[in-house]
């Protein structure tokens, strides 16, 4: 590939104070084989259109700021490379399924509230509550592996942009939050599964998922939320049957 080719990038613009609805603005950006979409956007901001707003920080696909739609597919801008679109054009839009705040910035507060709702922290058992700080839990490699993949989520919101069920029903707790709940439920240090199960077992919990599977397809960290949710459904179903036979234990 030769150095410094030119890519035509159409970027969705929306300024709440002046625009009625989003529109596309075209830019021409020179690129090399290493150029990421994030660098291209920063080039636009630095040299072509200082007004353009988008979130970004780490540039290395771990802070989760720069999720956006690239030709209709939700991706991290910093992990998207112009070289992969050589000969084509790129259309950049804000993450689907979230309200657009401005340009490529979306309002993710709903997602954050859902993350907070599922109690994403260790709820220790009574015995472990006052564990001294001179020792850790024993957690075997197998126990750790069981949840580790589900703990890789960077909260970028890409799975919500990919999820038709979230598109159709904003009450759905959604892929990342459900995955996080499941991650804590199966952590050997945690004893709070029963509390989280109440949320997972709601209609808007795991049961709103129809296993489309696109979340797992687009997840930049290979977290596989679809898997976590199916496993969550199994756990919820088993819990349902147990509660059916022991209704007394229902709080």
């Amino acid at each position, binding site marked *: 590939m030769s150095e410094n080719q030119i890519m035509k990038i159409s970027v969705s613009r929306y300024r709440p104070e002046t625009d009625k609805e989003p529109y596309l603005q075209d830019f021409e950006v020179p690129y090399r084989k290493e150029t990421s979409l994030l660098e291209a956007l920063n080039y636009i901001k630095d040299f072509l259109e200082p007004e353009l707003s988008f979130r970004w920080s780490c540039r290395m696909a771990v802070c989760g700021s720069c999720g956006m739609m690239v030709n209709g597919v939700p991706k991290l801008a910093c992990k998207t490379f112009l070289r992969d679109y050589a000969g084509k054009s790129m259309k950049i839009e804000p993450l689907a399924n979230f309200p657009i705040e401005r340009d490529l910035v979306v309002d993710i507060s709903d997602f954050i509230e859902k993350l907070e709702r599922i109690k994403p922290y260790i709820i220790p058992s009574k015995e472990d509550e006052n564990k001294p700080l001179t020792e850790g839990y024993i957690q075997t490699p197998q126990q750790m592996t069981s949840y580790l993949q589900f703990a890789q989520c960077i909260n970028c919101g890409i799975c919500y942009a990919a999820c*038709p069920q979230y598109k159709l029903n904003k009450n759905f707790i959604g892929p990342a939050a459900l995955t996080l709940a499941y991650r804590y439920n199966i952590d050997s240090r945690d004893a709070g599964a029963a509390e989280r199960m*109440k949320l997972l077992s709601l*209609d*808007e*919990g795991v049961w709103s998922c*129809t296993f489309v599977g696109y979340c797992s397809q687009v997840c930049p960290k290979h977290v596989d939320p679809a898997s976590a949710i199916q496993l969550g459904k199994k756990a919820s179903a088993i819990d*349902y*049957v147990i509660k059916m036979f022991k209704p007394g234990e229902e709080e």
Partner: protein
Amino acid sequence: MSTRRSDEPIYWGLFGFGGMVIAFALPAILTLMILQGFGVDCFKLAAIAKTWWGAGALFVIVSASMWHGFHRIYHGLHDLCIHTTRVHHYVLYGLAVIFSLAALVIYASKFFGWCA
């Protein structure tokens, strides 16, 4: 935000079971039906339905497929932006119940010889 526990596990359980049954049983049954249609004499349904194992298997296959199918149709309506209510729920799962009961009656009568 609701706090009511979903009853979905029942339907999901039946749906999952039905999905399995469809995947394992229907390819063979459909293949035999099609071959029969082309004149290959291989689909002896009337005789099978009279055996205890045949009647039992057919009951399971028919009713499980119904539960699977109506469950997906119910959720599919939502996917098509049709706002589903309890009415849709009762109608679709009601159909699954009716067909399952019909299957029960039909295969039981076959087995016990209540009809031809």
